[in-house]
């Protein structure tokens, strides 16, 4: 992977996609890395498709524009695969991480991904419902992203999820999210 990792998130308002990008940025601060996390700005509307972005780099990040050629595309809501082109601007070795119940091979076909592009799936919504009873797939998606990219260790990510969620939520919700993050890490399928 090049010295800067660029990530594009696709989600819908209310799924915690922007929060996921923020948690990731915070977690990647370690080791003196430079980070960026920013949503595609505008009025926030529950259910509306949105994009969020991360840049993570060993050198200073000066670019202040959306990620156009992502190294990683993280799709928090699989229904978006039918409505928008999530592969837009992808590189020859872009990794797609998709929250879906479908088989990764099926998704690969749908995306018309090339051989060098990786397609990874995780049933993040089911994991979220199992772990804390709500369809908020952001923490398992973070777990999956952590596994696939190796940007940070799982322990480090868990610590950051604990910190970020700890400001707002009860112990039960925090524990559920930690479980969900761990399961997202463990339950990725590649095809």
């Amino acid at each position, binding site marked *: 992977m090049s010295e800067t990792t660029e990530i594009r998130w696709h989600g819908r308002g209310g799924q915690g996609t922007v929060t996921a990008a*923020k948690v990731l*940025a*915070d977690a990647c*601060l370690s080791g003196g890395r430079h*980070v*960026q996390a*920013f949503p595609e700005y505008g009025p926030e509307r529950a259910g509306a498709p949105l994009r969020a972005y991360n840049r993570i780099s060993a050198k200073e990040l*000066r*670019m*202040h524009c959306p990620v156009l050629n992502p190294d990683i595309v993280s799709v928090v809501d699989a229904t978006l695969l039918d409505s928008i082109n999530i592969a837009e601007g992808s590189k020859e070795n872009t990794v797609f991480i998709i929250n879906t119940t479908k088989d990764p091979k099926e998704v690969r076909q749908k995306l018309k991904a090339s051989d060098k592009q990786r397609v990874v799936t995780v049933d993040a919504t089911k994991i979220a419902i199992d772990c804390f009873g709500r369809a908020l797939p952001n923490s398992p998606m973070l777990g999956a992203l952590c596994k696939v990219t190796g940007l940070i260790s799982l322990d480090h990510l868990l610590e950051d999820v604990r910190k970020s969620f700890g400001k707002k939520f009860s112990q039960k919700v925090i524990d559920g999210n930690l479980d969900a993050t761990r399961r997202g890490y463990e339950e990725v399928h590649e095809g």
Partner: protein
Amino acid sequence: MAKVVAVTGNEAVANALRQVNPDVCGIYPITPQTDMMQRYASFISDGKVDTEAVLVESEHSSMSACIGASAAGGRVVTATSSQGLALMWEMLHIAAGDRLPIIMPVVNRALSAPLNIHGDHSDAMGARDTGWIQIWSENGQEAYDNTIQAFRIGEHMDIRLPVMVCMDGFIISHSIERMEYLDDPEVKNFVGPFKNLYPLLDLDKPKSYGPLILTDLYHEYKRAQHEVMLKTKDVVLEVAKDFEKLSGRKYGLFESYRLEDADIALVILNSAAGTSKDVIDEFRGKGIKAGLLKPRLFRPFPYEEVAEALKNTKAVCVMDRSDSFGGYGPLFMEISSALYQLKQKPALINKIYGLGGRDYLPSHAEEVLQELHEIAQGGKLKIIKEYIGVRE
């Protein structure tokens, strides 16, 4: 010791204000600044600062409250954006004319109509002639650093002027980036205790603000105001030097990026300068001597210094993220004025980009640098003012 964090521009500036702990803060919400004052209001209610919050019914009132509090003898802050800054307009002149060192972060946003909440520089450019010092910031780190330095500059006994610290709405105000915070005692010590000049609340020495001055002295007062602005440059540099000792981060009147031997150069404010720098590196990689000048101090404008920095270039493009309809972009007019005094001038063009938050992309910088390269190679200068990233 510095603390490394990943925060938004708004959060960073709110934190700078917390570290300074001013006496009074005028608060009125407006996107994209709202989040900054909301955070500051939390600091107040959590007892982290002992600032008196004045919750007002408009930005005009906010600036009025700030003027009163500052004349009374307090260290005073507020923050705004866009229509809010526009609504303050008449009071901005009074703050400057009364020589009140109010510090105001401005989160740059487009002006209506049509209604738009995104980042461009129309708001602060409209406040160009209000007599405020204007300092512009590329990213959250610069906005934080500039906010801290603004107190030292505005409150300097030879200056006593209000200061706007500008950063791009959303692109910086709402983006999380890595940056370094100074420690609270370091900031407190750097800024120092607030010193009064003519406080109204010194009841043993009664005084009046805002007298009627007619043809007999008004002209003289305005001449004196210009003189203070001329002194400001030195104070900005002196404060920057002290700040560098504290933080290790270097600031000047403007930033020169790979400009020393440049044949072609961009002049560009705020966040788009960062994007441009990456593209300039690419052009350098191709053997094209490209550079960039990013103004920091826009009022007072350092004409001689800018002319000196650009004098060896062959072609320069001034990039404006605001417009003067029927005129050139406001930054272009400054650069043009600066370069006119040179015997040998570079070719000069003006591009209007990014209005109402339209993305400024690396491809835009490439396009402009390519055009400059052709002009520098002896190509013809086709059109002076043009819009980029616009659909036909």
